[in-house]
């Protein structure tokens, strides 16, 4: 079981290296492709942490759809990023270091990683695991919770996706009509 944690740490270090590469690279095409690798590596990290459904979703939606959307965007907006100015980087760096130090101080009080009697596992999760085979009759607990116990969450998610779709259509769809109108005049 120590092996699982070693793979977990290894993949996280890998993700850290990829994110530093994304941060430093000026070519947006390379950055987007590296971000695709980042998403795929995070999908395998989710698999290591026993979250198969999350891994599938991240591989399909995160590594697939996000990368395609970003590639489509940089095809329209250009693939070169301007180099960073020296003057503007000190304040963000200071903020990041202070926030990071505070958060690292905060995690020292977290319950131990991977213990079965952590507070998070003692409240509703045992009920989902014990009762859902009788109540919902779906072998996958994640599906049972997603579609039934927390069905309103999923409904809210669908509303958010619908709103985002309408937003994207209003932002990009209207442009074509206006251009056609100009060419007709």
């Amino acid at each position, binding site marked *: 079981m120590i092996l699982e944690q*070693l793979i*977990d*740490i290894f993949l*996280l270090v890998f993700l*850290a290296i990829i*994110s530093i590469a*994304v*941060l430093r690279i000026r070519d947006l095409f390379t*950055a*987007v492709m590296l*971000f695709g690798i*980042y998403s795929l590596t*995070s999908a395998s*990290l989710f698999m290591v*942490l*026993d*979250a*198969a*459904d*999350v891994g599938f*979703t*991240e591989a399909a*939606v*995160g590594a697939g759809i996000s990368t395609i*959307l*970003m590639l489509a*965007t940089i095809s329209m*907006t250009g693939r070169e*990023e301007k180099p*960073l100015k020296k003057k503007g980087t000190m304040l963000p760096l200071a903020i*990041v*270091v202070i*926030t*990071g130090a505070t*958060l*690292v101080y905060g*995690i020292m*009080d977290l*319950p*131990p*990683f*991977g*213990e079965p009697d952590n507070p*998070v596992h003692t409240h*509703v*999760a045992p009920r989902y695991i014990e009762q859902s085979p009788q109540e919902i009759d779906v*072998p*996958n607990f*994640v599906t049972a*919770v*997603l579609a039934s116990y927390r069905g309103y*969450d999923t409904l*809210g*998610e669908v509303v*958010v*996706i619908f709103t985002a779709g309408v*937003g*994207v259509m209003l932002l*990009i769809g209207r*442009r074509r009509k206006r251009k056609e109108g100009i060419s007709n005049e």
Partner: protein
Amino acid sequence: MSGLGVWNYVIIIFLMMIGLYMVMSSSNLVKKLIGLNVFQTSVFFLYISFGYIEGATGPVMQEGASLYSNPLPHVLILTAIVVGVATTAVGLALSVRIKESFGTIEEDELHTMDSSL
């Protein structure tokens, strides 16, 4: 807390801070959105680490298994991944519109244009 587990959380916070730095320091809007995604993914790692139990099986019912990892964080993060892509799509659409109207998606150039108007 000690051992390997603490490194799990430390690296997650490192990733989070890289995402935050990318959002604050990059002037390109697409790069900012990539940074936002890096930040978001690190929050997902944090939640999934909370749900992980050492030696447990994944949350699918099996014969003979008694210890399952917590399904609740998985459900929350499934929803969050899909919502995250939806918001990224809106952000990218906004940057396409900004490119059309202003001819650039570099933030400092946009600021100079905005103040010269």
